């Protein structure tokens, strides 16, 4: 069986080049036009960024709607979106636009923000590198996960969902190579409601799910 190669990654944020949005209509237009990487950043890469870890707002659009536009209804609708539930970013985009369009149809004036609170459209470069560490036995996986950086957890779990095989994290995929032997562990990993965890909590949950009990 192939060994598990532990990779690490670091994120570097950059401006997308899109003008900032000052109101909900501008947000809608920019979301419709922005690149997939921009949407991916604001929904998925938030966990690797230096921001306050607020479980109420797992994506930047919901946070902006609540904190700066003061639109609680829109914030709640956007905040519950799980980007990993979609097969493609385009499907995610369609849902976000639908929610914004619904809201624009409900309000009597277009919600806006003060100067300085505009939504800044960002994207990121993910620099990926091999740590040189290898895991050979599934029993080594949980202890190794506890020692991994946030970057490794993000790369092998969240980032992996976007790589072929789509929707599969690296840990489960590697274990599935051992046949059915570790099916229970894979199911435990699949049961983690990971989108609402920060990386520290996710590391703990993964290690817990992948711990192989010693037989008495």
């Amino acid at each position, binding site marked *: 069986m192939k060994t598990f190669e532990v990779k*690490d990654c*670091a*994120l570097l944020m*950059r401006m997308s080049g899109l003008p900032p949005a000052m109101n909900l209509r501008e947000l809608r237009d920019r979301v419709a036009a922005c690149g997939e990487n921009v949407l*991916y950043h604001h929904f998925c890469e938030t966990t690797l960024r230096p*921001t306050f870890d607020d479980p109420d707002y797992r994506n930047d659009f919901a946070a902006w709607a609540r904190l700066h536009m003061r639109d609680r209804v829109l914030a709640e609708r956007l905040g519950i979106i799980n980007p990993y539930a979609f097969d493609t970013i385009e499907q995610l985009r369609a849902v976000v636009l639908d929610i914004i369009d619904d809201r624009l149809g409900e309000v009597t004036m277009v919600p806006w923000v003060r100067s300085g609170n505009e939504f800044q459209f*960002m994207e990121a*470069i993910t620099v990926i*590198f091999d740590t040189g560490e290898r895991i050979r036995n599934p029993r080594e996986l949980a202890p190794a996960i506890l020692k991994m*950086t946030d970057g490794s957890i993000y790369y092998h779990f969240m980032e992996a969902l976007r790589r072929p095989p789509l929707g599969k994290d690296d840990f489960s995929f590697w274990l599935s190579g051992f046949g059915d032997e570790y099916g229970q562990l894979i199911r435990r990993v699949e049961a983690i409601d990971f989108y609402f965890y920060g990386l520290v909590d996710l590391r703990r949950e993964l290690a817990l799910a992948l711990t192989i009990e010693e037989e008495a």
Partner: protein
Amino acid sequence: MITPLAQYEAIVGASTVAQLRRLGKKLSGLKVVHVNSTREGGGVAEILEWMVPHMRDVGVNASWEVIHGDPMFFDITKSIHNGLQGKSVDFSPKDWRIYQDVNEMNAVRLRPLLEDADIVVIHDPQPAGLLNFCPNRKGRWIWRGHIDISSPFRPLWKVLRTFLEKYDASVFSMAEFAQPLPHPQFVVPPSIDPLSEKNRDLDPAALSGVRSQFGLDPDRPLIVQISRFDRFKDPIGVIKAYRLVRKVIPVQLVLAGGGAADDPEGKAVLEDVLEAAAGDLDIHVLLLPMDAHKTINALQRLADIILQKSTREGFGLTVTEGMWKGKPVIGGDVGGIRLQVVNYQTGFLVNTPEGAAHRIRFLLHHRERISEMGEVAKEFVRGNFLLTRHLRECLTLFFATRNMKKERTLHV
């Protein structure tokens, strides 16, 4: 004295330090030159003081150069600094001529080093003109703006922009600080060194020594603002907030800061502050020497609440420092303070002296919230604003600027 990277393992974990070493190994031997305008005083010098040795520690061939200029040059660059932060400033063609002449003079001295470097990082506007005088540069040039230039004084910006647009990339502390420029623009928040003299743990004797030195009463609450004497830090507003609190709670205030070699305006602001504080023995206005790091550390640790009531702010490293000491911070609702201070979590954001006074009173009447918020604040800094994260992003930036393709992932 720079602490070896290995000693940070106790604070951020061994895996984080190992990650830096792995990144550094991939950049081994890369020639990086940082250039700024002062070796001491101010946040940029503090960052470079640790960053350059740590870059060298992980294998990057990093160095730090400082441009030289006369007082007239630094008056001009202070005006540029103020203008970039939105203040209307008088700027004549002669001033730009002097700015360019000083940059050219420095380029003569630094040219061999800069033209040979793989990466040149120019910090803030003072040395930005160097690029024009290095026509045979072989590496990538990055302009690192540490201040908020989101609403600059337009006539000044139009000229400065002509210097900056020739760079290969620019870096800002927050996306909100940037201006459109015709090259990739990255966002890297700054950080603090938890083991520096300004931030490391202090024993109780050191704290009581500083308390006695400045005649602070241990039995009454203390609020502290540490920052250079600069109008954008609103020290007069802090005194106003203190006076509003003082009507009901016998609080003490420390306003402490050093001058910086490139800040001639500080003296005038200090005089205004002393005048506003005159006659009140519970307002301690302290002009500290550049190297009073331990004193600043102690004052922050002695404080019940840290203030940073800026009306314009770059990132606000004093906020990060205060949070690292487990204190809630009441900060102006501007710039990088917003990234760090989260209402009811790590402190409060305020817009007026009245707002600051209200929050000070709230915290002093709910003392348990002071320790709760302080604890959250410290952990927030540990996860996001320590030098290890900053160093990692800078190393990542070097990869990204060497490979300027617009790819989302980069395998190294």
